[in-house]
């Protein structure tokens, strides 16, 4: 069974600085997808960035980028130029590419605080 681990329950960053959130996962599959979701106090999960395992190039979305290390099964999220609106819970998630198992498996989350 696949597992996702986020070892940082909480992180803090100064506004305009850079922060990296860690995520490791375990799987025996070779093809899968990885995601970072943001959950603000409104509770709605919002997709931040996704990575296809077969792609070597790290995904980037504006101020958000990932460091995907497939052999190490590591998937960290870097937030550059942090803004107050980035404060939220961040969840790392795994999804198999097998059409029969499309469920998302989430880590326990990292609470990000942005200090003014």
């Amino acid at each position, binding site marked *: 069974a696949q597992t996702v681990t986020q070892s940082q329950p909480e992180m803090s960053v100064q506004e305009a600085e850079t922060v990296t959130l860690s995520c490791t996962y375990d799987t025996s599959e070779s093809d899968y997808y990885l995601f970072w979701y943001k959950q603000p106090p409104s509770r709605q999960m919002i997709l931040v960035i996704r990575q296809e395992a077969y792609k070597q190039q790290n995904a980037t979305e504006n101020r958000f980028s990932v460091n995907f290390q497939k052999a190490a099964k590591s998937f960290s999220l870097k937030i550059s130029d942090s803004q107050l609106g980035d404060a939220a819970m961040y969840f790392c998630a795994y999804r198999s590419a097998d059409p029969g198992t499309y*469920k998302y498996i989430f880590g326990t989350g990292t609470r990000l605080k942005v200090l003014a």
Partner: protein
Amino acid sequence: EAGVAQSPRYKIIEKRQSVAFWCNPISGHATLYWYQQILGQGPKLLIQFQNNGVVDDSQLPKDRFSAERLKGVDSTLKIQPAKLEDSAVYLCASSLVLSTEAFFGQGTRLTVV
């Protein structure tokens, strides 16, 4: 485009009572998920539908939880009878069948007292 709609947003019930949650997915999304998110934890899948068929309900406590998706659109999740440990946020999400992105609703926060 309208998002995933859930109701109610909050519910407080006594243990042993029953409760139902409703979800309306994004139009055209064949896949629908119900997740349970206990405070301080990540969401855990309870059940996944594709159209009106169940794909995965391996973590659904079937002695007290039930879910249905009539006509492959709206879905309801029921708990009967509720226990204190059912206190959580219940999230509904939907996606296109071959899409890698799931869209989430705002969830229902259930408190069992």
